[in-house]
């Protein structure tokens, strides 16, 4: 079993990236998804379930992040013996999730182009503990003033050599490399 803690700000495309990942993972990868939200909604877990993937929704009741205790309760509701990958979609927030380890194997952050290129400078903490960075919505690059050099300079100072994949959940561009990395991690686990 391989576990991924997927973090991002609200609207960065966490659920979209998960859905596109589900579509592209090889058949031998069986995943389950844990969805974290502060409000009592099932919007995200419904989308995952509709894709034929087991999903559990955690409603934190206003709490701004997930913690390992919540994950333990959610895991009990998933068919673990049938799975080899769990993706945890954390609450949309760049501050609080950084302070709580969930016990997953990889901490992954999605940074999307429209959020701006200054995020590593404004939220250094979350970049420090990352194993992988996904830069999403690269299809919007022609329309947005996002200085990739400036962004990556901040990332490099906080987390030298961080594994980074630039992709678009809308067009699927860049997904092959991310899927290959993830598949390799699961298989060699």
């Amino acid at each position: 079993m391989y576990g991924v803690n997927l973090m991002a700000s609200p609207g960065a495309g966490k659920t979209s990236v998960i859905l596109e990942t589900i579509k592209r993972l090889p058949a031998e990868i069986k995943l389950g998804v844990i969805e974290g939200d502060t409000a009592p909604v099932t919007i995200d877990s419904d989308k995952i379930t509709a894709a034929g993937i087991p999903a559990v929704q955690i409603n934190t009741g206003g709490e701004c992040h997930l913690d390992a205790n919540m994950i333990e309760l959610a895991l009990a509701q998933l068919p673990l013996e049938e799975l080899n990958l769990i993706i945890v979609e954390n609450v949309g927030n760049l501050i609080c999730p950084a302070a709580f380890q969930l016990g997953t194997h990889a901490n992954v952050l999605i940074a999307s182009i429209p959020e701006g290129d200054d995020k590593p400078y404004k939220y250094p903490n979350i970049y420090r503990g990352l194993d992988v960075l996904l830069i999403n919505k690269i299809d919007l690059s022609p329309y947005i003033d996002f200085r990739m050099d400036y962004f990556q300079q901040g990332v490099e100072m906080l987390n030298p050599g961080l594994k980074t994949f630039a992709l678009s959940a809308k067009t699927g561009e860049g997904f092959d490399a991310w899927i290959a990395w993830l598949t390799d991690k699961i298989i060699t686990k």
Partner: protein
Amino acid sequence: MHELPVTESILKIVLESAQENKATAVTDITLTIGSLSSIVDDSVQFYWDYVSRGTVCENAKLHFNRVMATLKCLDCDTTYSLIDDLTPCPSCGSINVIILSGEEFQVDHIEIIKEETNQDETTR
């Protein structure tokens, strides 16, 4: 906003130490907080007043020891502090840097009143 569970953890740590040392009251708690740790003093204080109620920590004073972020350039060995923004090495402009301090978040020490002797003691 994540300061509530964090403050509850501080209480747990202090209560354990207070019990080990047979404290009847905890009077002072010193916390070290790095500027990169995303912990807000005011929030911790706000939650502390609430979570410590009815424990030996009630009325304990929180002291915040703030630590500035310090970086070291691996190319020219310059050590520099971050005033606000994350910046490359001020001497040579390199981004090949390591963070020396600023990520701390710990209970540094507590002061208690003990039951037998009734004297102030410091525990680390």
